[in-house]
Each structure stands twice: as structure tokens, then as C-alpha cells.
């Protein structure tokens, strides 16, 4: 009897209780709470408070769009002051760059890795300035009527700045089928918060074509699904740019590090999603060193391709008849243009990964080249930097013209209205294009040119995937070919191990096994 009781007790303490320990360990270990759900009121859901069509001042006969601006400002007074301080207007901002101090940087004065630089190519590039007629240095940044209100606030999708016209819409004299004279009364009667197309008309086409620059911002986002962009998908949240990129007094949140440098005025996922959105410790802890984007944007350029490589050194070739050449790759993206050189386009691109603390360095216009590839911008941050996180980055590589004597990147005149004015896109000649580009920018040139490798780093932020398509643990936590294979300044579990330590460890295990086997054999025989 006693013995039976003891047997039951043994069964309980040897089998039942340990099994319960494991059961609860596994049960609570694998239990996961639901991610945080958020409800954020959207700007795009706002209904207009007034009907602009009823305002008499907007019913006048407009010929010059500057008169529309004047009419806007007659009610919306002081808005011009706000706008004229914005980077959309100034194309530069003051930024403190470590090692350089305060500098003024922006499209106003820096090189980019695409069409090399805006200054001197105003007719083409300044189409995307929010003003009218920034043809050259004489543009008046203090004339409020130079502001183009409509390009951002038109809700009719009928107002466009005309190609090559430095920001002007078509006039009676210049109108074409593609760019008719806007119906200003109709447009002015239908203004409101910017839509996808107001932002996209410039931000999707930078670099001379759809998705050339960003990779994660392109025309597919005008109408898209949540599979491409979980925020903007029309079958989902249906958010537009300004729902995240909110503006206070025309200062729009969000920083693009192709032109900016400081860790200020940024837009962060946590502003809506909190710092612990997964409601799960293991995942939420990752956020202190991993940007949300890293896992949640596993690929970019999900629809149309983006440029990954742009080699200016081969530009200028002509065919047998002396005409400019266009060549295309198998996916119908151009691979060679006489006016621009060779390209590599790709879609569904896996980002590269770098530490990034929200500040960048820029290769300033007059910097001396020290290394190749020239870093057009470079991201600050490493593992030991408490502000740095691992970010997905589009790295755009290429070759640009430089002065081998003065060791500087060259400013090139690419655009002109007509042939014979020395612009590369018209005449395909480097010498006059460089000379005129350098002259316009008041820069000295030795008279020689060659081409040098360049790189620019664009952190990826858009085209956030649905949760089912985010990275999983083993995309990084893996011995071979993980996404973070190149980031080696820290220990990553699952990827890293100390060879000596592991080999010693396995040796100890094998020796133990051999030891007990040997001992057993000796006992038996």
C-alpha cells in the first residue's frame, strides 16, 4: 500500500510535474500577442471647408499664372512667407555636417549621381521647382508671385508645368497637345490638400524618368495595391503622401538624404505605430538597432525598374548616320542613351544594408576627390553609435566626369533649348558642355576631363510590404548569404561564431563521447 502510494508519488514528480513545466514553458514561450492596431485620422479624408469656385477673385480671366498666385495670397496671406523659407522653394538648407560645420546644401549647389547637377540646366531641372521661371541666376526668390501654388494644390489633375520651361505651365504661344494652357478658373476652383499626383509629378520622375532616382517612389503608386505599398494600396488604407508627410506652415515632414544632411524634421514610423508595435518583446527589441524599414521593405522597385548604375563615360556615341542612339535591355528599360551613357535598371531589388544614424555627409561641389569611388553622399553610423540603426539602402553607382588635374567633379551643361548652344544633350560634345557648366557655376576647370566611379546612398522608406512578406529571422540570422552578411562590426546570433571556440567545443564533446565509449568497452571486456 505504502509502496503503491510511493509509486504514484514518483510518477507525479518524475513524469507529470516535469511534463507540466515543459508544457507551460512551451505554451508561454510561443504565445504571441496581436500587433498594435492604430487608428489615425487621415488628411486625405478631410472635406474642403470652402468652395473656392464661389470666390469672385478666382473667377477673373487669368492669363499669367502669377496672377493666380496673387489671388491665392490675397486671402491666404503670409503663406508666401512660410513657403519662401521652405526647401521646396530655396532648394537648399543650412545643415551641420560633422567635420565640416554649418554648410548650405541642396539642389542649389551639390552634385547628384544622376544628371550630375541642376545648376546651369535650369530649363529642364527647374521644371520641378515650385516657382515660375527659374531660368537662370536672375530668378527673384523674393517675389511671392513667382510661387506656383497650383502645382501642389490642384485637385483637377489638369494643371502641369510644361517640359523644359523652367517651371512655367504652357502659354498660348507654347501650348502643345501634351501640354495645353491650363484652365486656371477650373483649377483654382478645385484646390485642396496635395494628392499623389501633385507630389508624384516631381518626386516619381527625378533623374529624367519614372523611378530613376528613388526606387521606392514611382508612378505605379498613383494606383496601387497593398501588396506594393501597404499604406498607399487602394485596396487597403489608401493613404496619400501627405497623410504621413504632414505639413505645419508649409514645412513638410520628412527628410531626403540625397539633399539633406541633418537628423531633423524627419518622419518616423513610430509617430503612428509606437516604438513597440509588434507587442512582442523579441521583435520590438530589434527596433533599437534595426530600422522598421529593414524588415518591412524586403524589396523595392516592386513594379517598375529603377537605375542601379549610370555610366556617363560612354555617353556621346553616335550611329553611322551621326544620330543619337537608344538601346534597351530585355525588360525594355533603356540600357544606353547617347545623351546619358550606359544604365543598369532592375526591379524587385533587394536593398543593401548600412548603419545610419540620420545624418549624412555630402560631397560638396568644390570638394577635392581623394578616393574612388567618390561618395556623393555617405551615411554616418556604426554599431557602437547609439543613434544608428541598420537601414535598407538603394546604392546607386556610376561614373561621372571629373577634372583629373584639379581633382574635382565637373558641372556639366546638359540642357539647352537648341542645338549649337553647347549643351551635351543637344550636341553630344563634352568640352563645351563642361566649359559652359563650369562657367555657369563660377568654377575653374583645367580643361581636362576623365570619368571616375561614384556612389550615392538613398535610404529606402516607401513600398512597405504587408506583414506576410516582411523579412523573417533567417534572412539575417543565418550562417551563409544573409542579408546582413556585409555588416560585420557586431555579433549576430545565427550568423557569427568563433571558429576556435566552436572547434574546441566540439572537440570537448567528441572527447567526452570517446572517453565514455572507451571506458564502457574496458568495463565490458
Amino acid at each position: 500500500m505504502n509502496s503503491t502510494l510511493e509509486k504514484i508519488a514518483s510518477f507525479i514528480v518524475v513524469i507529470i510535474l516535469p511534463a507540466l513545466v515543459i508544457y507551460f514553458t512551451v505554451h508561454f514561450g510561443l504565445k504571441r500577442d496581436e500587433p498594435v492596431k492604430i487608428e489615425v485620422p487621415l488628411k486625405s479624408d478631410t472635406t474642403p471647408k470652402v468652395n473656392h469656385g464661389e470666390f469672385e477673385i478666382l473667377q477673373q480671366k487669368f492669363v499669367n499664372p502669377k496672377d493666380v498666385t496673387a489671388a491665392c495670397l490675397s486671402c491666404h496671406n503670409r503663406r508666401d512667407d512660410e513657403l519662401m523659407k521652405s526647401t521646396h522653394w530655396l532648394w537648399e538648407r543650412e545643415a551641420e555636417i560633422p567635420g565640416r560645420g554649418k554648410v548650405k546644401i541642396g539642389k542649389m549647389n551639390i552634385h547628384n549621381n544622376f544628371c550630375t547637377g541642376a545648376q546651369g540646366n535650369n530649363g529642364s531641372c527647374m521644371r520641378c521647382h515650385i516657382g515660375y521661371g527659374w531660368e537662370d541666376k536672375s530668378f527673384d526668390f523674393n517675389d511671392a508671385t513667382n510661387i506656383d501654388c497650383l502645382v501642389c494644390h490642384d485637385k483637377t489633375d489638369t494643371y502641369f508645368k510644361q517640359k523644359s520651361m523652367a517651371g512655367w505651365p504652357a502659354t498660348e504661344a507654347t501650348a502643345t497637345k501634351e501640354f495645353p494652357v491650363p484652365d486656371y478658373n477650373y483649377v483654382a476652383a478645385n484646390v485642396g490638400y496635395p494628392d499623389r499626383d501633385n507630389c508624384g509629378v516631381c518626386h516619381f520622375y527625378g533623374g529624367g524618368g519614372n523611378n530613376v532616382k528613388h526606387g521606392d517612389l514611382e508612378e505605379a503608386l498613383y494606383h496601387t495595391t497593398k501588396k506594393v505599398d501597404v499604406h498607399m494600396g487602394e485596396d487597403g488604407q489608401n493613404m496619400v503622401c501627405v497623410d504621413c508627410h504632414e505639413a505645419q506652415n508649409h514645412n513638410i515632414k520628412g527628410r531626403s538624404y540625397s539633399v539633406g544632411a541633418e537628423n531633423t524634421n524627419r518622419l518616423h514610423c513610430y509617430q503612428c505605430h509606437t516604438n513597440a508595435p509588434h507587442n512582442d518583446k523579441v521583435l520590438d527589441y530589434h527596433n533599437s538597432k534595426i530600422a522598421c524599414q529593414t524588415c518591412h521593405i524586403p524589396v523595392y522597385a516592386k513594379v517598375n525598374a529603377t537605375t542601379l548604375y549610370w555610366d556617363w563615360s560612354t555617353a556621346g556615341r553616335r550611329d553611322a548616320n551621326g544620330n543619337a542612339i537608344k538601346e534597351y535591355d530585355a525588360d525594355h528599360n533603356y540600357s544606353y542613351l547617347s545623351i546619358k551613357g550606359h544604365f543598369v535598371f532592375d526591379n524587385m531589388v533587394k536593398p543593401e544594408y548600412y548603419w545610419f544614424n540620420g545624418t549624412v555627409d555630402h560631397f560638396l561641389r568644390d570638394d577635392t576627390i581623394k578616393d574612388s569611388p567618390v561618395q556623393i553622399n555617405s551615411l554616418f553610423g556604426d554599431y557602437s553609435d547609439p543613434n544608428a540603426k541598420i537601414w535598407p539602402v538603394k546604392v546607386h553607382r556610376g561614373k561621372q566626369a571629373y577634372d583629373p588635374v584639379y581633382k574635382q567633379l565637373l558641372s556639366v551643361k546638359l540642357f539647352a533649348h537648341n542645338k549649337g548652344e553647347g549643351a551635351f544633350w543637344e550636341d553630344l560634345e563634352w568640352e563645351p558642355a563642361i566649359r559652359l557648366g563650369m562657367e555657369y557655376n563660377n568654377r575653374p576647370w583645367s580643361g581636362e576631363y576623365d570619368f571616375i566611379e561614384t556612389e550615392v546612398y538613398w535610404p529606402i522608406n516607401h513600398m512597405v510590404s504587408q506583414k506576410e512578406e516582411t523579412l523573417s529571422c533567417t534572412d539575417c540570422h543565418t550562417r551563409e548569404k544573409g542579408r546582413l552578411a556585409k555588416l560585420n562590426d557586431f555579433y549576430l546570433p545565427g550568423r557569427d561564431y568563433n571558429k576556435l571556440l566552436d572547434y574546441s567545443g566540439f572537440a570537448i564533446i567528441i572527447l567526452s563521447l570517446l572517453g565514455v565509449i572507451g571506458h564502457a568497452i574496458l568495463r565490458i571486456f
Partner: protein
Amino acid sequence: MKYKKQYLYSKFERFWHWSQMLLVLLLTLTGFEIHGNLSIFGFETAVRLHNASAWSFMGLALLSIFWMLTSKQYVNFIPTKNKLKEQVQYYTSGIFKGMPHPTHKTLFNKLNPLQRITYAGLLILIFPVQIITGVAYLYYHYPANPIDAEGLRMAVAAHTMGAFLVVAFVIVHMYMTTTGYSVSANVKAMISGYEKEPQHEDEANKKTELQ
């Protein structure tokens, strides 16, 4: 032959032992999966199970410390030199000749001198190192302040080495269970609590020297 049957392992002790066995097994499998040597559960599940079983292990460790202190059973784990030489000689030669064990178990002397050293090492060195480095990895995220632990490189190395040693311990431990008075005597004792050992006349009259 006469048998001496004595109650060596209390209910708590047996619960502790077998729970710990399962937890160490789970920790080892999941740990080596996280380290990249196995794939059984999948990485994410392995991480979650490793964390959870670490918590259970630490809870159980607290309970066992409390038990050891209140039951004074900690004396079993205090290393001694007494009969150490004889014990080494037994395992290296006597055991092959069928010689009797040089030491005898009692409630307050369950472990032979070699076991005492091994278990003390496990309890004082390996388990605390595994716990401290493991907790550091759980909570001392991305360390720079106040101590720059260089991404926990040392902690990770120590934790990994600890894992190898635990595996080596388990191998030897499992083998050693077969070296009792019969091949299964030790395992049976850890199940029933009672250990049966054959008793010779002279030994029966002998008092245990240890203690």
C-alpha cells in the same frame, strides 16, 4: 546477498532533476539551433523556446537553492579531497576489476568526491555564467553604456563555451549513471528515490567516514 535500501532522493529533488533534464535538453537543442548548428524548430521558435526555457530554468534554480538551503542538502555539493584519490583509482582501474565502490551514498553524502567537484563546477561556474550571459543577451541590448561590452562578444563566447561544457557534462553524466551497483541502479534511484545496494557484512558495520 543482503541489500541496503535507503531513501536518497526526495520528491522535490526528483522533480527538480527531471524538470531540469528536460529544460537543459530544450535549451541545448534550441541554443544550438540559434547558434546555427541544428535546424529543428525553426529559428524564431527556437529563440522563443530558448528564452522561455531559460526563464523556467532560472525559476527552478531559485526553488532548488531555497530547497538546498532549507534542507541543508547543499553539503552534498561541497568539494572534498577525502577519498578523491581512491575515487579516481576506482574509475580508472578498480571498476574494470569489479572492485567495490570506495565511497558509499548516504542522504548527506550522495556524491562521491569526483562528483562533488564536477557538480560544484556546474553549479558555481557554468550555470551562473550561462544565466548571467544569457540575461545580458536578453536585456543588455546593444551595450555601450555603462559598460561597453563590445556587442557582448565576450558574453557570447562564454555562453557558447558553457553550452559545449553542458553537453559534455550530460554525456559523461548519462554514462556515469551506469556505474552504480547495477547498470540501472542510479537511474532507478532517481525515479523511485530509493537506492538499493548490495551489502557486505564488513561494510554494514562500517560507519561512513565522510561527513
